[in-house]
């Protein structure tokens, strides 16, 4: 056993343990429990002790007994000697320790003697650490958004760290922010407008994109190569440079503040990527099918309707989902074009709400939850189809 490997192993495992315990402590603090210190020294010392003991005991004890023993000792020291904590806190610590000791169980004195073991230990723990940390960093804002929408202004001011929800209170009290934004701020209307714009964009985009994609994928015409490269270049072009000319022209045509104007812009901005994705798929459909159709004297309209469409349902639905998500999330154009509250989309409405400094934050968060939930649901549910499209670069941003 090399000393260097041993030191790495003990230090890294205890730092990992410390970060796990600290994240748990943060979450506990957010439930209103008073906890002022991470106790860095104590946890690290305990961690080093446990990882070394693990090596010394080795396989003399059954690994389950060993884990339970370590977990029990740690929990006792942390939850009763250093500070007295509620039982549910200690249960969490106990679970973390069981997880941790099971993870370090695979390291033995023999294992640490091999050449690259310190690197492997580092990589193992970095992986675990990465999983925990990234999940925490990513999910925390979403968690906060959800919880804040259930709190009251007073509770938020008294203790900004108290994220606990009182489920015993009245249903109406709990969902108060949601009732308020629907009653006072007309969010029902905004949901309808957003849905209408997004679904409309999907339909119009598909109507325009399917024939164009078919032509690019199958037919020979002058300027075809130029067209297919320019689709990608146009897609890279920034929306911010379109804003001023579109604003002026739309003002003069009276298209500002109209859902129709928004629909046109959304369709145009999503068309390039829709055509790009669809033509890629159309190319993969065997040509023989169409040749047979031409023999049967079907015209192009017939070919698209009767052959291409039924075969490319998966591609079309994934394009549709994308376009929906892009249109639903879009903010820049809705900010520029809409200044009449009667034609706001959800995103614009939330931004408008926040413009008033008096607006309680839980209303803002309730609105945010409403605008976020549909996209996340769609995304999680259809993830398999969507991930491949994402790699094709379909969501710009």
């Amino acid at each position: 056993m090399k000393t260097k490997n041993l030191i790495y192993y003990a230090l890294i495992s205890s730092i990992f343990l410390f970060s796990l315990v600290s994240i748990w402590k943060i979450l506990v603090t957010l439930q209103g429990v008073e906890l002022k210190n991470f106790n860095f020294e104590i946890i690290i010392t305990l961690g080093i002790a446990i990882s070394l003991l693990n090596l010394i005991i080795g396989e003399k004890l059954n690994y389950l007994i060993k884990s339970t023993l370590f977990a029990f000792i740690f929990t006792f020291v942390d939850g009763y000697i250093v500070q007295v904590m509620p039982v549910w806190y200690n249960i969490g610590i106990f679970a973390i320790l069981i997880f941790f000791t099971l993870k370090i169980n695979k390291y033995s004195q023999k294992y640490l003697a091999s050449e690259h073991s310190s690197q492997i230990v580092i990589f193992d723990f970095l992986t675990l650490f990465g999983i925990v940390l990234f999940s925490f960093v990513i999910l925390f804002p979403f968690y906060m958004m959800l919880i804040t929408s259930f709190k009251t202004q007073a509770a938020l001011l008294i203790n900004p760290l108290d994220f606990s929800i009182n489920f015993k209170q009245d249903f109406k009290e709990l969902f108060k922010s949601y009732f308020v934004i629907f009653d006072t701020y007309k969010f029902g209307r905004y949901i309808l407008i957003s849905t209408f714009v997004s679904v409309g964009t999907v339909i119009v985009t598909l109507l325009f994109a399917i024939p164009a994609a078919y032509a690019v994928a199958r037919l020979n015409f002058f300027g075809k190569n130029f067209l297919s490269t320019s689709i990608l270049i146009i897609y890279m072009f920034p929306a911010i440079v379109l804003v001023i000319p579109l604003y002026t022209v739309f003002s003069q045509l009276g298209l500002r503040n109209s859902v129709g104007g928004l629909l046109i812009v959304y369709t145009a901005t999503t068309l390039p990527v829709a055509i790009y994705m669809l033509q890629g798929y159309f190319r993969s459909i065997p040509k023989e099918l169409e040749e047979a159709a031409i023999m049967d004297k079907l015209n192009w309209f017939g070919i698209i309707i009767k052959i291409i469409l039924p075969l490319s349902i998966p591609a079309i639905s994934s394009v549709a989902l994308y376009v929906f998500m892009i249109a639903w999330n879009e903010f820049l154009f809705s900010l520029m074009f809409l200044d009449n509250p009667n034609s706001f989309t959800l995103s614009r409405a939330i931004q408008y709400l926040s413009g008033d400094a008096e607006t309680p934050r839980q209303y803002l968060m309730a609105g945010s939850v409403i605008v976020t939930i549909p996209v996340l649901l769609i995304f999680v549910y259809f993830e398999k189809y969507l991930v491949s499209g994402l790699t094709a670069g379909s969501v710009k941003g």
Partner: protein
Amino acid sequence: MSDTLSKIEKRTAYILILPAVFLVFSIILFPIFANVWISFKEVGLKDIRIPEPRAKKIVKSIKDNPDQLKVIYKLRNSSLILEIRDVKLQDKLPKNIKPINLDERCRVKSNKIYCDFGNWEAKYKENFQILLKSSDGKQINKKELKTIKPKLTGKSDNILLNTNFTLKNFKKVFFQNEFFDLLSTTFYYTFFGTIGSIVFGILTAQLVNQKFFGRTFMRSVLLFPYVGPVVALAYTWELLLDPYSGTLNNLLMNFQVIQEPLNLLGQKYLTINFFGFDLKLRLALTTVIIFEIWRYFPLAFLFILARLQAVPKELYEAAEVDGAGPLQKFISITLPQITAVISILFMIRFIWNFNKFEDIFLLTGGASGTRTLPINVYEQGFTISDIGMGSAVSIVIVALLLLFMFVYFKLIGKRADEN
């Protein structure tokens, strides 16, 4: 025979692509050219409203004279700046009603009044009156008269269409707009955001490429920031980072990491004492960059993960036989395999970050040292209401992007030649 077939094919192709091409041309390409045009003009936000002649029709009855009525048209020019030429009014009269003592600018022809008002200067106002008399002695139906709306037409200059050009906007962009400050902020934001999102993309892709419990779930979760609506996420972060009631500051103070709350989005500089040297950190800019990395690393993650999964397993097995450790495997196998993806990602993310507007706008509004070029487009155009300036800044953005792409492809092209 085949000749006609290919002709038909061509014609069909053009019919199929025409709607899409037309739409993309008018909404995406036309504005880019229009930007060039507008950027050479002095146009304010108020100038882009086309001046309109307007008339409000008021019907009044006259005392002691039930078969007569007075119609007042409140005429005005809607523009405060531009004149309207050849204003014409046209209004319909119900049957059996005739005007008396008609103004000399007007004439009646088959139940319609036509008036020629000539030119109206800016802010022009007039109360124009017509006396109406029923020709058959019956009482005039006031309601019917009210519901008929007069039609007004007139010609006016559209400030956007005339050919007065000026270089003023560009002079202002480069010399009165703290241009180099803007440029450096934009560059920091773009560069560090891009590098950061790629680094985190590599880390997370490496992570998810291993087998562990809950891996598919992890992959979905990692993409959440990318697919969530920017408005919701930006406001959540704003709440999280708030100096007084924000969770982050309260947590840090609770665990005694910091003594005073940090205004992460509202403070331009943070002085850090580093071994006796005072380092000035652009605090708000750093926070905005961190948000950007948080939101956009998933794209890098997905691209790199897809590439990693295509790397043949044998390579790693062979390396293991040769006694390579994890670090060595990463450096000599993984990195060379993903350089191509990284260089594409670098370009895409650089271009998109360079044009990022919403994120900064929602988080800081461009205050406390986070003003980038896209934010400046909005500020010039809509806060200061100088459309011409906004367009000029847009043109600068497009020019810089084209320059970047040119340099990038030169470099990449060279590297490709060398290999």
